[in-house]
């Protein structure tokens, strides 16, 4: 009988914090600046420059740790991780090894067989590195240090996950938690959330872990799923052939669906950590910690529960809407304006989700003003636009955030509520379709739909279909 294998997975998740400035200097963290325009002596590692810790980084790290059930090291400090690579101008990264800010927490996930806790080993604060681009013309590399010194937290889990599904569930939970706190937007595609996967396999029932590999370069939930499947298969194949898995860092190539060993740098992986003498320790008082704890916002599970209770949304709808902080915020702001939660939820659940999927976007990318959705809902409620026009207008709100009142007026999309005009068209349609009229009168009431369609067509979609139907019936 073939051997059965179990996959053992732990994650190292890096999250870029949403601070305005870098972790140790007053340079902006804004995206999209020309290369090296967001740099100073500190984040380019000039000798003699001194780092000073951004208080907000400690606040965010602590908030995430508390929400993830961690213990806080109230006395914590920074260490230097030494390595030479041009993305790192100091030749060391400032990180935390000995006393990381948070430790021993957990995240609860739902699995096929019930709830499960994924333990968090630690969360530490550190700085991001610069970006290297290869220059084809001169066969050299060019460095942009705009991201150098951007604050990160690294969340290290215990090897508690056993499948790609559990990994996805864990990342989803973690992402929601951090987004709701506002500590990061957590976009995998844009790199503000990055996951390294530590994976090993062992025979079912074995007590010892197998040798693990670390996979990098995973920038979507789908890529993570494929990488886990691919690496599991690769390791099992090695074991089946009687070969050993080598402990190494591998780079996942999502196009080829295979991981490659990263060329090991000529020197060993020996970071020679030591305490950073330029930075003073952080001493977190009970009062400070409690203040951060008390200021924790409502997180996703509480918000879902409140939407069900307060707005009467079905659990499923409440879950989908709160699965993105952005979406939930739009929901709430729109409901405050039109007080029709069911209608607002419908627009988000149906049309918004459809357009996001069509345009391959995430809910965090939503850009429209809730005021505009509220106006559109009012226009449908007072019968000013019919449902097919409303969908068309909504698409415009979704893409260009237009004001629907202005838009329908400018494009002449308002439903014609002039009964005279409608009656004229109804009479004309009845005249032109005498055969259908006879069918209706002989009992085939289904044909009414066809007649309504003809009226709508004659009025270029601007009639109220219910009204047209009524009038038709009356005339018939």
């Amino acid at each position, binding site marked *: 009988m073939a051997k059965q294998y179990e996959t053992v997975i732990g994650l190292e998740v890096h999250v870029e914090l949403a*601070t*305005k*400035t870098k972790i140790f*200097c*007053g*340079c*902006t963290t804004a995206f999209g*600046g*020309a*290369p*090296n*325009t*967001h*740099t*100073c*002596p500190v984040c*380019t590692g*000039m000798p003699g420059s001194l780092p*000073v*810790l*951004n*208080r*907000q980084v*400690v606040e965010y790290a602590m908030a995430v740790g508390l929400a993830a059930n961690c213990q806080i090291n109230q006395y914590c*400090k920074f260490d230097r991780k*030494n390595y*030479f*690579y*041009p993305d790192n101008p100091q030749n060391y990264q400032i990180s935390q090894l000995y*006393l990381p800010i948070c430790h021993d927490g957990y995240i609860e996930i739902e699995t096929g067989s019930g709830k499960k806790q994924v333990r968090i080993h630690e969360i530490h604060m550190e700085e991001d590195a610069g970006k*290297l*681009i*290869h*220059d084809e013309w*001169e*066969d*050299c*590399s*060019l*460095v*942009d*240090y705009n991201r150098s010194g951007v604050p990160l937290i690294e969340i290290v889990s215990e090897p508690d996950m056993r499948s790609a599904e559990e990994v996805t569930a864990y990342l989803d939970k973690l992402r929601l938690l951090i987004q709701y706190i506002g500590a990061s937007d957590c976009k995998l595609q844009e790199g503000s959330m990055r996951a390294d996967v530590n994976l090993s396999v062992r025979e079912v029932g074995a007590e010892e872990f197998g040798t693990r590999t670390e996979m990098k370069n995973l920038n979507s939930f789908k890529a993570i799923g494929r990488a886990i499947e691919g690496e599991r298969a690769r390791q099992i194949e090695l074991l089946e052939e009687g070969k050993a898995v080598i402990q190494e860092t591998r*780079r996942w190539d999502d196009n080829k669906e295979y991981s490659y060993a*990263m*060329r090991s740098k*000529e*020197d*060993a992986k*020996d970071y*020679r950590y030591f*305490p950073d*003498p330029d930075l*003073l*320790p*952080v*001493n977190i008082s009970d009062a400070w910690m409690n203040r951060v704890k008390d200021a924790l916002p409502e997180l996703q599970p509480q918000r879902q529960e409140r939407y069900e209770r307060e707005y009467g949304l079905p659990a499923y709808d409440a879950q989908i809407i709160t699965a993105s902080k952005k979406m939930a915020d739009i929901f709430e702001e729109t409901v405050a304006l039109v007080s029709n939660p069911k209608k607002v939820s419908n627009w988000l659940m149906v049309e918004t989700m459809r357009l996001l999927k069509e345009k391959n976007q995430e809910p965090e990318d939503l850009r429209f003003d809730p005021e505009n959705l509220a106006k559109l809902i009012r226009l449908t409620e007072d019968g000013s636009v019919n449902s097919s026009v409303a969908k068309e207008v909504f698409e415009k709100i979704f893409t260009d955030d237009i004001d629907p009142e202005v838009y329908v007026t400018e494009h002449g999309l308002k439903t014609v509520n002039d009964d005279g005009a409608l009656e004229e068209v109804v009479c004309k349609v009845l005249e032109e379709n005498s055969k259908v009229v006879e069918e209706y009168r002989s009992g085939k009431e289904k044909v009414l739909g066809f007649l309504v369609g003809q009226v709508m067509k004659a009025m270029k979609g601007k009639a109220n279909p219910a009204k047209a139907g009524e009038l038709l019936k009356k005339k018939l």
Partner: protein
Amino acid sequence: MAEIITDETIDYVSILAKLKLTEAEKEDAKADMQKMLNYIDKLDELDTSGVEPMSHVFSFDNVFREDVVTNQDDRDAMLANAPLAKDGQYKVPKTVE
């Protein structure tokens, strides 16, 4: 008794530090490092039970900046420190992952 600094240790450390040492320099470095380790041994003779490990030479903590942008674009001044630059970026030997 302190660990003996061998030739292998010196070679390994110079790889990590990206230093090319002459034979004479290696001997000097070996002797210096040995002295340091011996000194640590000396410290070990003291009874430090009940003494909190010192994490910093200053008795300060909690020195913070507020999260406010204070730096403007100073790219050209920064790049002036670089041996080589191109298109507003630092030019370095090719790196391949």
